[in-house]
């Protein structure tokens, strides 16, 4: 409780002083202070854009795959192989994210010569998000009563149609809850991004281009402590990131209050 309160308090207190229109919309810049020292100014719009792009890209990759994998576990996973997959899925969901970074670096960035890019970052985040979406989808599908499934089967509907149009549609709010909460979670990931997205001070011109992201920016700013203004920018970036993550979380939690406990406990 105390840590959470302190984190929120400090982030808001210090971050608020950094906020300005220029901070939210500008690109990073160095200015020379009247004292002659260089100071960090400008804004972090590039990082905000990068984080939003990465979130979108990740959702586009991970949600469909995770949905189908969740359907597999719920509908066909009641056997030895299915149980092993469920187990490995749980193991993967707790895996050190930096290892995923190494994986994507080797396969995509270097192996397939994609290079440091938004795409590589999106894939890395997708691998982190995939097991979560899979499990939340499975849990939501399992909440659909047997009777609904029976009704669909008794109408002579093909199982795949019944699964997509009846079962998933009944489970949709749970599925959406899971997907949104996992997007919120990966939006704060930084370790795998260090190894995959490179860095950029310009707005994105393509998914194969290097990109910046809020969590990575915060990390870099924390180590550029010697430049004046860096720490303040870091707090500002942290404020934006935490607002993004917590708003998404709070909104979802309030909208689904008291429901989908099984789904939420998977995040």
């Amino acid at each position: 409780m105390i840590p959470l309160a302190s984190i929120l308090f400090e982030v808001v207190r210090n971050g608020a002083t950094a906020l300005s229109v220029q901070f939210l919309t500008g690109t990073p810049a160095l200015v020379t202070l009247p004292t002659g020292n260089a100071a960090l100014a400008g804004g972090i719009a590039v990082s905000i854009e990068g984080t939003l792009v990465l979130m979108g890209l990740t959702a586009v990759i991970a949600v469909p795959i995770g949905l189908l994998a969740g359907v597999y576990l719920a509908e066909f996973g009641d056997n030895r192989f299915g149980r092993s997959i469920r187990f490995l899925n749980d193991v993967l969901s707790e895996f050190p994210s930096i290892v995923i970074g190494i994986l994507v670096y080797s396969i995509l960035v270097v192996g397939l010569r994609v290079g440091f890019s938004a795409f590589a970052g999106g894939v890395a985040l997708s691998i982190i998000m995939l097991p979560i979406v899979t499990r939340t989808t499975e849990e939501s599908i399992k909440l659909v009563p047997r009777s609904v499934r029976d009704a669909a089967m008794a109408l002579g509907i093909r199982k795949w149609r019944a699964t997509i149009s009846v079962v998933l549609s009944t489970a949709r709010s749970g599925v959406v809850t899971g997907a949104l909460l996992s997007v919120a979670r990966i939006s704060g990931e930084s370790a795998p991004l260090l190894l995959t997205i490179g860095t950029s001070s310009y707005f994105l011109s393509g998914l194969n281009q290097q990109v910046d992201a809020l969590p990575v920016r915060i990390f870099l700013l924390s180590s550029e402590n010697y430049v004046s203004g860096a720490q303040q920018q870091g707090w500002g970036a942290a404020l934006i990131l935490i607002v993004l993550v917590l708003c998404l979380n709070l909104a979802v939690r309030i909208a689904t209050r008291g429901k989908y406990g099984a789904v939420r406990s998977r995040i």
Partner: protein
Amino acid sequence: MGLPRVSILATTEEAAPAKRAEDKVSDTFLQKLKGFSSDDLFEFLATSIGSLVLVILIVTSVVLTRGSLAVFGKFGFGFLTGTDWNTSLGSESYGALPYILGTLVTAGIAISVGILISLGIAIFLSEMAPSFLRSPLSQVIELLAAVPSVIYGFWGLFVFRFWVRDYLETPLSTYLGWIPAFHGTATGYDILTAGLVLSIMIIPTVSSVSKETMMAVPSSQREAAYSIGATRWEVVKLGVLRYGRSGIFGAAILGLGRAVGETMAVTMVIGGTPGPYVLPTSLLKGGVTLSSLIATEFGDATGIHLSALFGLGIVLFLFALVINVFARLMVWRVFKVTGGIVE
């Protein structure tokens, strides 16, 4: 009405008239092929996508093994036991021991502090909290889990570090400095701070899993304890903690797994530079962990240096694999038993 009505049920082999097959094997194969419906395709597709997680884990282990072949080829097991970390071309030397130990020590601090707080929270939530407090409190704990790790790191570096330095480390080094573990100057930029930040980060995981385990303890266990005249605390101790201990243990191991793999927050507050000096002999010294070293050096590494980082990766991978498999098995077992599902 005299005509027999022949109902035609659609069959999946309508299109191809049945053929007498020469032998049994091809017969069943043919039938399988003909009987292949859109549902089978769906099942096949879902199963392949479901298996992706298996592919990911296999590919990860292959990539890490291939990447680290060079460093293990050159240094053999000395890579695991060595303490040198010299990246200058020509005199390169890589030993991972300080970082392996750094990871273990920080995770160890995290788990020993984290488990105490988490258990307190879990007991409070499952046994003592009035019901109107339960839900909001669990929500707050869940929010704690949602805070990005880089923010924990930033906060740790610019706020928490000074609390640790002033209220914990300064007294420790002043009064207990003669113990090797507390040698050094209190800077707050060290292993102890990293471990404590980690302990805060794992609280949500450990407390929510332990809470669920405790909630799963059948009320008959509690009633049994009450019926022999136990106090509230004794009920928790006898009925709940003992009954749910393997689940709580599993939760702790799960937390350990998170702590071992956590990168950013640790990297930001642990404050050491690689080399023999960061062998974690004192908690008040800067340290380096497996993941923090990968995070800081991966960007500029090439050749054998890069291979050495892959080597760290494989050690981390194995740690995480063993810990998580173990933890999942523990947690699963508890829920299987208490859930009444017998397999």
